[in-house]
Structures are given as C-alpha cells and as structure tokens.
C-alpha cells in the first residue's frame, strides 16, 4: 500500500537501509529533506493510529485493570482502578459460560460455513450455466436478503419462528402436520444459522459468480470439443479456477461466524433458549453494558480478536499453497 507512492526518482534516502552509514546521502538529506512521502502517508498513518492502534492499545490497557470498591461503594470516590495483571484473562478462560459460548460458536460455524459456501457455489454455478433462464432476476432475488440488516432479518424470522404468529405453523396445522418448536434448546442454533444463511448466501454467491464470469470462454469451448458435460466443466474447470474466491468467502464467513451477535441478541427476548452469554461477543456485551465491567469485556475482546486472527492465519497457511500456486510462481 505504501511502497507504491512514487516520488522524485532522484530523491535521496529512498532506501536508507541500503547504505546506512554512507556519509554522502546523509549530507544530501540534510540539504534537501523531502516532506512529500511523509505528507502523503500522513492521512493514512494518522487514521490508523487514532482509529486502529490507539483503541487496541487502550483495550489492552483496560484488560489489565480492574475496578475496586471501598466499603458500600456508594458516593463519589468509592471506586478506583487498580492493576489486575492477567486476572481478567484467567477469569475468562475459567468461566464455564465463556467456554460454552465458544463451543457453541464452533458448532454454529460447522453448521453455517459449509452450508453457506455450498449453497452459494451451487447458485453461482447455476446462474453461470448457459441454460439458466431469468438469471438476472434470480441473481437479484438471491442477493437481496444481503441488503436486509441482520437485526431486521432476525426480527422477521423471529416472527416466523413464534408458533402463534407464524404462518408456517398455521399451514402445518391446516395440513395436520406436526409443527416443531424451532426456538427450543436443541434447535435454536439451527434457527440462528438459518437467518445468517438467508442473509449471507447472496453476497458469497455474487463474489463467486463474478469470478466465474472472468473465466475465458475458450476454456469451455475446448472442454466441450473434448466432450465434457456441464457438470464436468463445473467440477474440472470452474471450481478450480475460482478457488481463490472460495477461500476468500470461506474466511469472510469464518470471521462473520465467530462474531455472531445480532441474530441471537435479537432473538433472545423471544425465547428461554438463548442466554446472555450465548456467543462470545454476547458475553463481551453483557460484561461491558449490563455488568458495567469494561475490564473483563476488554480481556474477552482481546481473546476473541487473537483467536479470529490465529484461525484465519492457520486457515490461510493450510490452503494458500494449493490455491495461490499460479499467482505466486
């Protein structure tokens, strides 16, 4: 991002590391200090420092502190902030609710990510197929839920899940079919995944579809001349070529999964099955805003951020060699 800033070719000190102790460039630098690269860097650097680095450092500091109370804790001056070491982290790791929420999100990811990618890929391939009619219309319809904010879609689905206001239950009753309680303990995770799936498939499909459109058509012609069927073309040509897009959507889905918050939070008041620590981010919210304990919320945030980073990194490491062979060679 920064290395492409091309300034005066003759400007000294473009590569200070190359000759760190050479006296000549140093003299030159003193004569003509060039502000231009720094000026051009400044907006990005300042924004990064103020809105990225500073909050992260501040969160780290908060996570190492705790509030202590004197006496009954009433009135001003009854509270003070003290250094807490790693006790907030220790508390988070030994909190059964947090561990349970992490496990729940793991299961949620196992349900959601594969379902999301498979559906998105199938839709993208269908839309890309020459024989599909109404492709433009279908594309818009599949994409549309992505434009609905998660809170709104959760409310919509919440109404559809509640037995006495749900048209599905009415329909099931009319047909004498059993109507399962989707918000019960065992099934609520699918109910939440369904909302995320409904909202997310369209976006991932468009990413994959765009990648499919970029494939040169002569590849298909060649395949057809060799007698390959549509399915064979999809499996042997299309999917391998759009693999980088698949990996990218997988990582985005993975991150979105670990950050799941809006859907369960919106559904929570409608059911007994969703606790205030149902997902890790909900625990962060509860600690910060219901328990007024920013310190433990900060520690949990850091744990979540590091976990997401680590998982994404490991995932990339595992798949990158295969996926990006062509580009890297």
């Amino acid at each position, binding site marked *: 991002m920064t290395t492409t800033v091309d300034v005066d070719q003759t400007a000294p000190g473009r590569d200070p590391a190359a000759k760190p102790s050479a006296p000549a460039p140093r003299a030159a630098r003193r004569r003509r200090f060039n502000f231009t690269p720094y000026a051009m860097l400044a907006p990005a650097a300042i924004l990064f420092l103020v809105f990225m680095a500073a909050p992260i450092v501040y969160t780290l500091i908060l996570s190492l502190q705790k509030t202590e109370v004197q006496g009954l804790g009433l009135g001003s001056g009854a509270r003070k902030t003290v250094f807490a070491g790693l006790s907030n982290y220790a508390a988070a790791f030994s909190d059964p609710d947090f561990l349970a929420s992490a496990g729940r999100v793991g299961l949620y990811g196992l349900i959601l990510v594969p379902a999301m990618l498979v559906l998105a890929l199938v839709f993208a391939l269908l839309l890309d197929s020459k024989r599909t009619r109404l492709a433009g219309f279908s594309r818009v319809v599949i994409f549309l839920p992505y434009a609905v904010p998660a809170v709104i879609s959760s409310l919509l689905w919440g109404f559809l899940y509640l037995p006495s206001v749900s048209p599905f239950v009415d329909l099931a009753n009319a047909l004498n079919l059993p109507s399962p309680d989707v918000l019960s303990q065992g099934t609520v995770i699918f109910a939440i995944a369904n909302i995320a799936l409904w909202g997310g498939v369209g976006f991932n499909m468009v990413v994959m579809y765009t990648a499919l459109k970029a494939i040169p058509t002569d590849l298909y012609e060649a395949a057809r001349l060799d007698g390959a069927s549509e399915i064979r073309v999809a499996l042997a040509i299309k999917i391998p070529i759009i693999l980088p897009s698949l990996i990218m959507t997988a990582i985005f889905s993975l991150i979105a999964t670990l950050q799941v918050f809006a859907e369960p939070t919106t559904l929570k008041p409608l059911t*007994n*099955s969703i606790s205030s620590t149902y997902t890790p981010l909900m625990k962060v919210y509860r600690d910060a805003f*219901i328990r007024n304990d920013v310190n433990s919320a900060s520690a949990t945030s850091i744990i979540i951020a590091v976990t997401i980073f680590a998982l994404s990194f490991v995932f990339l490491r595992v798949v990158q060699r295969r996926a990006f062979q062509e580009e890297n060679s």
Partner: protein
Amino acid sequence: MRRTIRAAIGAGVLAAALVMTGCSSSGSSSSNDGSLGTADKPVKLTFWGWAPNMDKVVDTWNSTHKNIQVTYVKTDAGDPAVTKLLTAIKAGSGAPDLMQAEYQKIPTLVSADAIIDIKKDVSDTTTSKFSDGVLSSVTLGSDALYGIPQDSGPMMFYYRADIFKKLGLSVPTTWAEYADAAKKVHEADPKNYLGTFSSADAGEFAGLTQQAGASWWGSDKDSWSVDIDSAATKKVASFWGGLVEDGVIDNQPQYTPEWNKGLAAGTQVGWVSAVWAPGVLAGNAPKTAGKWKMAPLPQWTAGEQATGNWGGSAVAVTSQSKNVKAAVQFNTWLNTSKTAVSQMVTDGGLYPADTVDSKEALATGNGFFKNQPDFYTQAAKIAETVKPFTYGPNVNVAYSAFNDQFGKAAQAKSQQAFLDAAAQMQKITVADLKNSGFTVK
C-alpha cells in the same frame, strides 16, 4: 489477491477489536450549583426519560417557567437508558441534567457516581408526600436523597372476568387457589393459560419474592449481604416451578409478539402484574377493554395483605449537571406539584408516587377498566401493603443471572431446576460483589 486477503483479514480482526472497545475515561466534572436563570437568559436543562407523554408535562413546565427551559429526550426504557447514562458518565460528558431511574437501578447509579445526593435542596414537605417504602428506595436507608420518586408499581392480579365467569371460577385470594384456577383454565382449553412464568422479567419475580417476605440485599455500615436464595425466594421459585412442571401455566417470556397475541386472543387469561398494567393491556389488546378486572395479588396465607413492587421510577440529578438547583426545582415540580402529577395520570397513565397531589386525577378511574370504576381506590389500598425490599449495587448482575438461570429452568420445565436457578443466582451475585471488591457478609 493474496495481499488483499491478508489486508482484509487484518482489517476484519482490527475492526472486531475496535467494535468492542468502548471509550471511557473517568472523572466527573465538578458540579456547579448555578443560578436559576432569567426569562432572557434561561437555564437550559436536559432530561432523559421514557414515561408515556412525558414530553407534554415538560411542555407545561416550559410554558410557565421561562427562566428554566427543559429539553426532554425520550430514551429506551430501563436497562438501555442506564447503559447510556453510565457510558456518558464514564466518557466525562454527554449525560443529561436529569434522568429517570428505576428504583432497582438507583444503588447501581449511586455506586457508579452517576447521580448525586440532592437532600440539601429538597424540603421536608416534598419528601413527606411519599410513603416510607417508596422513600427508602431513593434514600437507600441513609441520610442522603438520590432522587425524587415519580411513580410506583404495586403488584396486582389481572384476570379476564368474562372467561372466569364462563368457567365458573372465583377470583383466587391465595396462591393455592391460583394454582387451582390455573389448572382449571388449562383443562378447559389446553391452549389457554392463567399466566406464564417469564424468565425475561426479573423485576416481576423480585416483586413476587418481596411479597413473600424476601429482601435480596441488605447493608450495614460498610458491608453488603445477599439473600437471594432465601426461604421466601425458594417458596416462590418452587411454586412457579411446580406450575410450569405440571404444564398448567405457560413457560414462555412476556413482551413477545407471541405473548401479545395471547393477550389479544384471550389465551392468556390472567396476568400477575402491577398498577401500570392497563397501559400495556390497552396497547397490546385494545379490543379486550372492559373484559379485564383487577384484584389484589393472591396471598401466601389466607387473610394476609401483602404485595411486592414491580417497576416504578424516580427522577435523579446526574453528577454532570452544572445546574443542580434549577434541576432540583424542576424535579420537585415534576413529581410533587398538582399540575404535573395530574397530567402524568391523565396523559401518561402513570400511578404517581405522590399520592397526595394525584388523588383528584386518580378519582376518575382508568379508561381501560370502565367496568371497575374504583380501580385506583383499590390500587391505593393495595399500594399501602407493599413490603420493604432492599436493592443492592449489582442488581444488573443479579437480574441478568435471573434471565439466564430461570430461562434454563423454564425450558427444563422442572421444579428442581427452578430451585437450582435461585441458588445459582445467589452464587453469581455474591461472586460479582466479591470480585468488585465489595465487602460481603
């Protein structure tokens, strides 16, 4: 491509961290009493609240008090409002001068140094208008005064008189009779319930245990005690747990589209609620007007007269107010003047804590309960039977533990799970106090 992905991941991770980073800095501004303003140069106050039609009451003040002009900001009710205030307090600016605060939140707000003691600016005539029970919620048993009471929520029992008549049921006066009636209602039509145990409403459960004689917190000179898992709470928990286990009352939370529909459709035949229930019923089930009736809460022992409190608020002055004197003057008018209190009854449907100045307005009864013209006369009698109850500095923690633990128990539909939930609540609440450094006995 590869770099893009890396950058995107980096951005994602950082964004995640960012989202969770609340800004906070401590230190409240030194409050300045300030003048009372003049018509040319009025003092400007901000007031956060959510009571229905409060803006109209504020308009009345503004048109008659040119020297103090109040801007009313309608916030979300309850927890979100407290969160918003505490965030503003931590940020060092952005808090209003006055804030509507539910009684159970006052210890939390005092403890966070968000609201101040206004005792020296409030006369004894003002405080004498409130019952001792209500006043104790704003003094916290000390010499201080952390707010002026606005409304109260003595608990009562509401039932569909028409359905009771059809089934030949009499109004339950004891909880044993309530259980009996619940069974009959559900047997007559399996879709119907006399009520539901709502894991979303900790305040309701707290009020029910209050009736049974519980007081979840207590304090002496410098230590708190927690008595959530007391005999009284166990009695209430096991009663409702038993009803849920037998399936004679519903186990789904209140205030959901499902529950609203139940009220309107007549599948929720009764509601253990408080004096403000008519507003909720009128909003959710307007067509059932005239079909409901109110009675005192069923009792644990026949002939007893006791109830608890669910809801009700005071108005407090925040620690960021620069015009404390003006704020207190408005606050006093708002909650203890005949004009304001009457308007709160007629426009807002509130049941004012100041029962002296509201008598006249309350005498006309409640529009939704035309079939019960003495609604407020009865309510006033019930309000006198509210048992004492002390809230502690971590009500938020206890209530959120209630939501989680009793949510699980309601889902499990087992009486034992209800008792376990009460024990868990006690454990979580004590652990939180100790963790914050409070001395707990």
